[in-house]
C-alpha cells in the first residue's frame, strides 16, 4: 500500500516537471470541447455562407472555405429592399431606446438608492414588484391601443424605457460601490445634490454606465417581440431582428429574396445558404461591440452582487 502510494507520488511529480498532469489534461479537453461547441456553429455558418454553390451542396465540416470565396448570397440579401429599410429602423430604435433608457433608469436608480429620503423605499418596492407581477400581454395591448401607440414606431421604444433589471443593478451599484465618504465630502464642501451627482458620482460611474448602455443596446437590437405583438404587419416599420426571423421561418420572404437573386442573373440560391448569410449579417453588429461588451460585462453582471 505505502509502496504504491510512493510510486504514485513519483509519477505525479514527474508529470509536474513537464508542467501538467492528467487532471489538467482532462479539464483542458473538457473546457476546449465546450468552447468549440459554442463557437464552431458560427464558424461553420460563416464559412458555408461564402462557399460557392458547387461546393456548398457537397456538405462537409466547412473548416476552411473551399473553391474560393463567393459573396453571391450577400448580394442577393442586400438587393432586397426590406433589408436596408429594416436596418435603419433597427438603428433608430436601438439608439433612441438605449439613450433614453440609460438616462431615465440611471437617474431613477440614483434617486432611489438614497433610501434615507422619504418615499424612495416605497418607489423601489413599486418598481421591483413589477418584475414579478405585470398585467401581461393583453392588458398591455389594451393600454397601448388606448394610448394610440399600436402600429406606430413608438411602441417599440417607449414601453421599455425604464428597464427594471438594470434599475436593480444600477441601484445596487450606487448604494454599495460608490464610497459614501466621497459624496459626503462633496456635500460638506458646499456642493449641492445636483453638483454631487453630475460632478462626482457620474464621472466615477462612467464604466458602469458604458457597460449597461451596451447591454441595453444589444437587447434592443435583438428585440422583435414589440414589433410582432403590437405592430404586426407594417412592413416599413420592420426591425432587422424581425426580417431575420422571417428569413429563417417564413417561406414567402425566402422566395422573395430568391426571386430577387434570379433577376440579378444567378440561379436561385439554396434557402439554407441564404439563411446562413442572413445569420451572419445579423451577427456582425453584435460582433463589433463584443470586445467592448466583454471588457465591461464582468463588472456589469457582478455589480453590487456581493456585499463588501
Amino acid at each position, binding site marked *: 500500500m505505502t509502496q504504491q502510494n510512493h510510486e504514485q507520488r513519483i509519477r505525479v511529480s514527474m508529470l509536474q516537471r513537464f508542467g501538467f498532469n492528467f487532471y489538467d489534461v482532462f479539464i483542458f479537453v473538457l473546457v476546449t470541447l465546450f468552447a468549440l461547441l459554442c463557437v464552431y456553429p458560427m464558424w461553420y455558418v460563416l464559412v*458555408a455562407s461564402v462557399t460557392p454553390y458547387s461546393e456548398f451542396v457537397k456538405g462537409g465540416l466547412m473548416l476552411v472555405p473551399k473553391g474560393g470565396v463567393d459573396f453571391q448570397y450577400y448580394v442577393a440579401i442586400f438587393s432586397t429592399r426590406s433589408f436596408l429599410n429594416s436596418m435603419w429602423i433597427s438603428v433608430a430604435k436601438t439608439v433612441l431606446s438605449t439613450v433614453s433608457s440609460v438616462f431615465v433608469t440611471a437617474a431613477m436608480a440614483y434617486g432611489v438608492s438614497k433610501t434615507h429620503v422619504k418615499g424612495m423605499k416605497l418607489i423601489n418596492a413599486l418598481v421591483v414588484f413589477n418584475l414579478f407581477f405585470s398585467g401581461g400581454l393583453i392588458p398591455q395591448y389594451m393600454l397601448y391601443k388606448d394610448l394610440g401607440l399600436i402600429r406606430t414606431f413608438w411602441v417599440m421604444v417607449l414601453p421599455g424605457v425604464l428597464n427594471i433589471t438594470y434599475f*436593480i443593478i444600477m441601484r445596487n451599484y450606487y448604494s454599495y460601490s460608490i464610497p459614501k465618504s466621497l459624496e459626503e465630502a462633496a456635500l460638506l464642501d458646499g456642493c449641492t445634490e445636483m453638483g454631487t451627482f453630475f460632478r462626482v458620482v457620474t464621472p466615477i460611474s462612467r464604466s458602469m454606465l458604458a457597460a449597461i448602455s451596451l447591454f441595453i443596446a444589444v437587447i434592443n437590437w435583438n428585440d422583435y417581440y414589440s414589433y410582432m405583438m403590437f405592430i404586426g404587419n407594417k412592413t416599413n416599420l420592420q426591425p432587422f431582428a424581425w426580417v431575420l426571423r422571417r428569413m429563417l421561418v417564413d417561406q414567402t420572404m425566402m422566395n422573395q429574396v430568391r426571386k430577387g437573386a434570379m433577376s440579378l442573373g444567378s440561379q436561385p440560391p439554396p434557402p439554407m445558404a441564404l439563411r446562413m448569410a442572413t445569420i451572419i449579417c445579423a451577427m456582425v453588429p453584435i460582433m463589433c461591440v463584443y470586445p467592448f461588451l466583454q471588457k465591461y460585462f464582468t463588472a456589469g453582471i457582478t455589480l453590487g452582487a456581493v456585499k463588501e
Partner: protein
Amino acid sequence: MMVQQARSLSQDDLRKRGPGFLAYIRKYWFLYMLVLPGFIFMAVFDYGPMYGIQLAFKKYSPKAGVWNSQWIGLGNFERMVGDPNFIRAFRNTIIINLYNLLFGFTFNVFLALMLSELRLKKYKSVMQTCVYLPYFLSWVIFSGLVQVFLESPGTGDSGGLVNQLIVAAGGEPVDFLKRPEMFRSILVITNIIKTSGYSTIVYLAAISGIDPALYESAAIDGANRGNAIVHITFPRILPSVVIMLILQLSGLFLSNFDQVYNLYNNYVLSTGDVLSTYIYRISLGGGGTDFELSTAMNLIMNVMGLIVVGITNRYVSKLDVQGIF
C-alpha cells in the same frame, strides 16, 4: 422584499424635518426630479396596463371596450382549468424548467469550476471569450443556427451537418426538430450552449475573491487539487450558487418565449408548447382572439410566481449575500 440596509437619519435630516413637507421637498428636490421621469414611465407602462386585468373576470366585447364589458365572475378560470391545452402547456413549462434546473444549472456550476481550474491564464481568457459569446446572439439567430445544423435532408440539399454525419456513418437521417420526444432535450441543450458561459461569470467572480493563501496552506497540509475544490472553492461559491438557484426557482412558472417560439412547430406542441407561447397563440398570434382566457392565465401565473418568490425570498434574506432585490 428588499435586503437593503436602512440608514439612520442624520442629525441634519432631523433638524430639517421641522418646517414640514414643502421644506423637505425643497431640500431634496433634485433627487425627486431624478426619480420623476422613471416614475412616470413606471406608472404609465408598468402599472398602466393593470386595469386590463379585469378582463380575466369579464366577457370581452370589442364594442364595449375593457371597462364596459360584462362581468362574468370566474367563468374564464373555469374554462382555463377545463382546457386540456392549458394543462399541457402548464405541465410542459414546469417539466422544462425542472430539466433546466437539473442539467443546466448544475452544468453552470461545473463549468465555472472547470474554467477556474485552467492553469494557463491566457488560455483561460480565450476560453471565456468563446463561451460567453453565444449569450449575445438573439434566440432568432441561435435557433437559426440550430436549424441549420439539425435540418433533415430535403430535395436538393444534403441536410444539416448533424444529419450529414449520421448519413456518412451509415445511419438514417433524423428530423430532430419535428420529433416530440426530442424537443425538450433540444431546448435544454441549446439553453446550456447559449447561456452557460455567461452564467459562470457570477461564480468566477466569487472564486477570484478567494484568498490564494488558503490553497497554499491546504497544499502544504497535503490536499490535492480535488480536495481543494471540495473544501475551499465550493464552500466559497455556495452563497452565489444558492442565490442563483433561488432566482431560477422563482421562475418556475415562467417560460422562455423567445427560445420556444423560435424553435417549436406544430409537430412538437405535445411536449414543447409552454404557457407563454400558448397565451400568445390564443390571443394575438395564430388567429386567436381569446383575450379573456389569455389574461386569466397570465394572472394565475403571476400570482403563483409571486407566491414562489415570496417563499424563496425569505431564504435569500437570511444569506450573507446582497440580494438582487
